[in-house]
């Protein structure tokens, strides 16, 4: 069996699966139950001045029969006294010394406040700290969470303050509610962060009840924006992890999260540079036992490929992720329809005809049977037909021989720029 042990900036855990700072890590009872189930680490629900919550707090977005495709919450950080949390952290760490226990922290942007909470958390025996610069709701209205995390100078300064007092590794958790997450990730590194983690939740309104006309969820007839997570946000999170991983100025490990729902998602995040993954929504949907499938699936994946350690896949796909301007303009794929598999639902034809490049013809074969055929010379290889096709194997995207030499947009513009008389007007 492959070695699943991970090391994030010196924080070791028996496997890469950590519970993210959220309702599943609210108490010692829950975290210990998670460790018994097999989770490698847990980031404790954010510690800070105990807050007051509202009821209700969660909403899910279901899509075409899939429950919890997205998840929205308006719950805040811990509502329990610091002393209670720290006592349970101490007990948990004592009982599970080999598991990673991280304290998520959020205080006002004041040096003494960071020093105080860092020292108190570390005295309880945590393996590391995660600075919560991400929560988008409630706390942000008070100048904390994402309100801090959206300003690089505040990220840098508060990271510096935490580091001044910290003896354990400091992870800075970043908000996705910003145009370019690398700006705040770089700020965290400048502040001395030992690692960064991403993404926190995305500003969201889960829905509006079209009968009552009230926001979902609502609290006595009123709603407020919440934080969105779950499978729907995975592509956004994966891109942000990847962008940070390929940025040479962000030279610290990354803890990846955002919609990780199964072991395959974990592999994707780790291939794109995450040293481990944090999970919340999947655990809230299915319970702690999902970690069995996560570990078994990841382990089998590595064993089947003869990979001895999970460490050996971290970042392996990062070099393949670049800017659009570095993609080959002359590389071509086209769609090919396998009519022996096709069920003639015509979804591909409709999609192509209505919304793409009008290159799938509805024809009849020699026996008068309806068939679909792609005019390959007009096909731009957009993938839409294969995406909407309901039958696996009915449409293949085939690489076609390149007629023109490889050339990226950047190379082309450089080439045109070399001409004496070249003008590109805008």
């Amino acid at each position, binding site marked *: 069996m492959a070695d699943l042990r991970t090391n994030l900036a010196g924080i070791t855990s028996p496997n890469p699966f950590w519970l993210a700072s959220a309702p599943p890590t609210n108490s010692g009872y829950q975290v210990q139950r998670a460790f018994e189930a097999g989770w490698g680490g847990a980031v404790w629900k954010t510690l800070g001045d105990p807050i007051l919550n509202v009821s209700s707090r969660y909403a899910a977005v279901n899509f075409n029969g899939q429950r919890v495709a997205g998840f929205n919450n308006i719950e805040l950080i811990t509502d329990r006294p610091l002393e209670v949390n720290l006592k349970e952290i101490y007990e948990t760490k004592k009982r599970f010394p080999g598991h990673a226990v991280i304290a998520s922290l959020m205080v006002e942007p004041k040096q003494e406040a960071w020093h105080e909470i860092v020292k108190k958390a570390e005295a309880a025996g945590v393996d590391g700290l995660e600075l919560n610069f991400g929560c988008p709701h409630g706390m942000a209205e008070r100048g904390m969470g994402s309100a801090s995390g959206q300003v690089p100078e505040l990220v840098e300064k508060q990271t510096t303050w935490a580091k001044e007092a910290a003896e354990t590794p400091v992870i800075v958790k970043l908000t996705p509610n910003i145009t370019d997450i690398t700006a705040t990730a770089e700020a965290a590194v400048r502040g001395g962060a030992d690692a960064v983690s991403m993404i926190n939740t995305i500003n969201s309104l889960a829905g509006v009840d079209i009968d009552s006309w009230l926001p979902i969820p609502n609290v006595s007839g009123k709603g407020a924006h919440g934080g969105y997570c779950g499978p729907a946000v995975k592509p956004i999170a994966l891109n942000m992890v990847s962008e940070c991983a390929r940025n040479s100025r962000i030279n610290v490990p990354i803890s990846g999260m955002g919609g990780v729902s199964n072991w395959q998602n974990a592999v994707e995040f780790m291939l794109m540079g995450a040293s481990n993954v944090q999970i919340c929504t999947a655990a809230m949907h299915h319970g702690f036992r999902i970690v069995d499938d996560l570990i078994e699936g990841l382990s089998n994946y590595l064993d089947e490929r003869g990979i001895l350690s999970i460490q050996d896949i971290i970042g392996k796909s990062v070099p393949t992720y670049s800017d659009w301007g570095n993609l080959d303009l002359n590389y071509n794929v086209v769609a090919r329809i396998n009519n022996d598999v096709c069920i003639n639902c015509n979804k591909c034809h409709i999609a192509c005809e209505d919304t793409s*490049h009008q290159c799938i013809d509805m024809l009849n074969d020699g026996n008068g049977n309806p068939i679909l055929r792609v005019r390959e010379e*007009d096909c731009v290889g957009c993938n839409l037909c294969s995406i909407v096709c309901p039958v696996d194997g009915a449409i293949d995207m085939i690489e076609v021989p390149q007629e*023109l030499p490889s050339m990226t947009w950047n190379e*082309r513009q450089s*080439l045109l720029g070399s*001409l004496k*008389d*070249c003008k590109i*007007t*805008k």
Partner: protein
Amino acid sequence: MGEHEQYVIEREKIDYFIDRGYKINGVLENLEGAFIEFKMNTDEKEEESIETLHIKTANGRKYFSALLLKQIQSVS
């Protein structure tokens, strides 16, 4: 006329000039597509021959870019 057919026609027009010894001398790209200026290599006594082609298709723009690459590589 389909996009591909339009491209084939543009490619033939570009090839027409290239086959006759014209070089791509300048390119103007704007909202209407690309305008390629072809210039014939003539000896100094002859009158300079300049032709312009309006390229509207995306594949046409890729095509002349590839020819330009070839032209520049052949010089260097």
